């Protein structure tokens, strides 16, 4: 299908003619010059009108992308004044309360950015707000991809890249948070030092190498600085580039619907609509960040004072994205093993190092696990509704509940104060809840999804409930159902049937399994667990049957026409000429 024949009904401002480079047109000349050297036209021809499907949830990744751009811009501004040095200086700037106090140059220059560089505080706050937005948007984007099955073949690699981006984003945020060398950031580094020291065998060496000797030393901020402004941004940039290239190569997934198939992509062309919307959206993200930076205070480092390893404030909290590590650290019981003159701090090593890695690995490996269980080698470009993958959706809900609990556990002192609870009780509760709640959430979410599937099936087979109650001549009452529109009916059926893997089918004629029967049995069990209870879409015959039944009801209705239940003929679907309410 081409678009030309359709543009006729479109606003005149879009001249139907493409902007052909006229002779003597300077832009055309430049384009010509460039193409003769770079051959861009061949590449551009394919991509200028590339199709992007539209849906609000596709915007989440865009928020992450644009807030990264805002981070780059504001970060460069900050780096013009920030001095990554731990040399001791006496503060002489504009902020009265700290004048004359000895502090590191890093902290003093952060105060200068806040109080002596015009727009500096705005840029600092925008930088910090966009960092929050960046990580939050990545997490929500990842949830969208997971819930809709967009990670399935051929997009598994982009899923892994996305996971690495989140990991790097969190590390980058931590490095940035540590740079100003205020009391909170120093406390964060102290905790990081404790985590590193808990590494079996190598911990002490690693800590000394990180800090150039004992904590805190005077090397860590210059080192974190180069990590923060060059190393990780470079990696992020490369991975984001790869992420976008793969996106273009695979073409975006789309929701099923009329005309949308596994083999096409329906949407707006990159030029002009998608480019305009995405470009406009950049300005919106940038603008919202500027408003937040202008109106909402974040990380007011001057209130915390310079880092002093012997001081700490009550209720000290890391940025929210460190919340689960914080929660894990807090609820872990204090277990340590002392063996042959060596100390193994399980209380730090497990929550601080092992668990975050395990959680990340589980998330990264899900697409491969799911593909192995289903044995599905097909490409998938149509998204699934979360309810149509109940086990997967329930898994995410369970993970989210763990995340939420750990997050709450990370703020257990604040919860205790706000709700007047006993801190120890909250912690004991959390120790149990992180094991029990996810299981409950999993079971409930799965059931909920399956009942949503049932209601979809009912809508498809019996139509939607009109709210009109009818009485038959025999005195029975029924609610009148009307069929859903052709488009929505099709959309409801536009999904694949789940196939439960049968280990027996893999066995040869003699009943001997071909490849490791144990593994096959595990796979079969997982497959049953994942798909057995799902509601499959009806077959053509079932729909036929249901419609047949509906016709009978319809005949019944016809028979009643004229002496029907009061009022139902006024439902706007019947001619009501000559009808009056209660005229008999």
């Amino acid at each position, binding site marked *: 299908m081409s678009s030309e024949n359709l543009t006729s009904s479109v606003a005149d401002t879009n001249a139907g003619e493409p902007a052909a480079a006229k002779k003597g047109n300077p832009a055309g000349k430049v384009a010509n010059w460039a193409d003769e050297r770079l051959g861009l036209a061949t590449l551009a021809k394919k991509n200028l009108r590339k199709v992007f499907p539209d849906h609000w949830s596709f915007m989440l990744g865009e928020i992450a992308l644009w807030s990264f751009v805002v981070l780059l811009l504001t970060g460069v501004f900050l780096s013009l004044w920030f001095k990554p040095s731990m040399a*001791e200086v006496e503060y002489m700037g504009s902020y009265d309360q700290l004048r004359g106090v000895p502090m590191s140059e890093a902290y003093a220059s952060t105060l200068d950015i806040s109080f002596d560089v015009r727009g500096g505080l705005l840029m600092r706050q925008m930088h910090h707000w966009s960092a929050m937005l960046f990580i939050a948007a990545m997490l929500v984007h990842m949830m969208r991809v997971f819930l809709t099955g967009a990670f399935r073949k051929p997009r598994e690699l982009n899923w892994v890249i996305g996971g690495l981006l989140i990991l790097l984003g969190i590390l980058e945020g931590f490095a940035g948070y540590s740079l100003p060398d205020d009391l909170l950031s120093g406390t964060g580094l102290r905790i990081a030092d404790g985590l590193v020291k808990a590494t079996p065998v190598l911990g002490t060496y690693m800590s000394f190498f990180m800090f150039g000797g004992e904590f*805190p030393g005077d090397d860590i901020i210059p080192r974190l600085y180069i990590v923060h402004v060059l190393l990780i941004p470079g990696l992020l940039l490369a991975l984001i580039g790869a992420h976008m290239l793969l996106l273009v190569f695979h073409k975006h997934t789309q929701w099923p619907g009329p005309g949308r198939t596994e083999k096409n992509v329906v949407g*707006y062309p990159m030029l002009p609509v998608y480019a305009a919307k995405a470009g406009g959206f950049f300005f919106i993200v940038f603008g919202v960040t500027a408003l937040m930076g202008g*109106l909402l205070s974040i990380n007011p480092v001057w209130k915390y004072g310079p880092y002093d390893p*012997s001081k700490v404030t009550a209720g000290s909290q890391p940025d929210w994205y460190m919340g689960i590590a914080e929660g894990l650290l807090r609820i872990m019981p204090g277990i340590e093993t002392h063996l042959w003159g060596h*100390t193994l701090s399980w209380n730090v090593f497990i929550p601080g190092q092992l668990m975050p890695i395990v959680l990340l690995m589980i998330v990264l490996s899900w697409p491969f696990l799911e593909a192995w269980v289903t044995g599905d080698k097909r490409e998938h470009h149509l998204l699934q509704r979360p309810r149509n993958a109940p086990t997967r959706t329930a898994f995410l809900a369970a993970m989210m509940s763990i995340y939420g609990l750990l997050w709450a556990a990370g703020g257990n002192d604040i919860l205790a104060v706000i709700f007047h609870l006993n801190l120890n009780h909250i912690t004991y509760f959390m120790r149990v809840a992180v094991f029990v709640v996810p299981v409950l959430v999993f079971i409930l979410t799965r059931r909920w999804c399956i009942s949503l599937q049932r209601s979809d099936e009912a809508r498809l087979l019996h139509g939607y409930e009109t709210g009109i109650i009818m009485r038959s001549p025999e005195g029975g009452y029924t609610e009148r159902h009307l069929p859903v529109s052709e488009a929505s009916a099709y959309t409801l059926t536009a999904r694949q049937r789940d196939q439960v893997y049968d280990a027996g089918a893999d066995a040869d004629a003699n009943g001997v399994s071909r490849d490791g029967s144990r593994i096959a049995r595990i796979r079969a069990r997982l497959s049953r667990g994942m798909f057995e209870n799902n509601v499959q879409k009806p077959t053509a015959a079932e729909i036929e049957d249901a419609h047949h039944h509906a016709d009978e009801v319809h005949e019944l209705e016809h028979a009643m026409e004229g002496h029907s239940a009061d009022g139902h003929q006024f439902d706007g679907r019947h001619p009501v000429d000559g009808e009056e309410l209660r005229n008999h």
Partner: protein
Amino acid sequence: MSHDDNLPEVPADERAAMAAEEPLPNPGIEPHTPRPTDVDKKAEKRAERQVATFFGLSMICTILFVVAYFALDIKDDPDTIGGLGASNVALGLSLGFALLLIGIGVIQWARKLMADVEIVEYRHPATSSQEDREATLAALSQGLEESGIGRRPLVRNTLLGSVALLGIPAVVALADLGPVATKSVRKRTLETTFWRSGTRVVNDVTGLPIKADDLEIGQLVNGEPEGLVHVPEHREGVTYLEGAALQIEKTKSAVIAVRMQPDEITFSRRSPENWSVAGILVYSKICTHVGCPISLWEQQTHHLLCPCHQSTFDLADGGRVVFGPAARPLPQLPITVDDEGYLVAQSDFNEPVGPSYWERDSE
């Protein structure tokens, strides 16, 4: 199996059966419904004016930004408006709206005036065509063949060996990142603090030495060894530290001095009576979990709570952990009084302070 078929794993007959089972046919893309701006000249003009207004307002905001930049002094009270300075608020608002209005304008333009006809593009499977794969494999094996890498294992293996060896300098060259944590280095660093026999305990804010009588029952004072707190006049014979050296020593040497009723204290081998003076005990302030300084004192229960992850220590019972993720009691500093009656250390701590590390128990 055709090349651009996305369902290659299902045999044709099965697929036909599945198609028959498809309950409903695909009705195809819904027809395009024109928007008011497509059919109504007036609506179109109105939208055009609307978009231009957004852009115009954005320009005004940009000018306001420049005006605010020069007109408002940031050195004034930084807390004029809602905890933020007037300059910050004005710059944020003007920049924010300058950007936001461009964004809104462009999107409005796209929604109201640009063609809103959906178009279709066909997908191709990610995999390359069979010919391409074969050609690639052929080129690859020809290249390898011509290089002789398979035929000359000597050359190949020495090359691999030499490149692999280069990994060693890459690691070795980083060795100067920090001292190697050998036993003697650990002894000198992690396992030694600023406390010596006779070092006075001073208040961590005033830097003044503390007498037993200065402390009331139930009172807790944050202390440092003398030399780690800046005082106007330095006492003779005391080393005063600055900069990184000061920070490192504070990380290990910060203490808390607490006075309790002597009969409420449980003395033990860990916490012998002769380490205390008149019910005053001095403990390391550094949490044995991951090293935060501990600060929250509950007089009634003698409990000290770490604000980082809420480990709680019983100071009346040798610094035992009563709650939370810490696994070891707080190290105690043996103290006595000097001839002038000030609290002093008997010696350094006799175990490393702060978070655990692998070699901590080695002795």
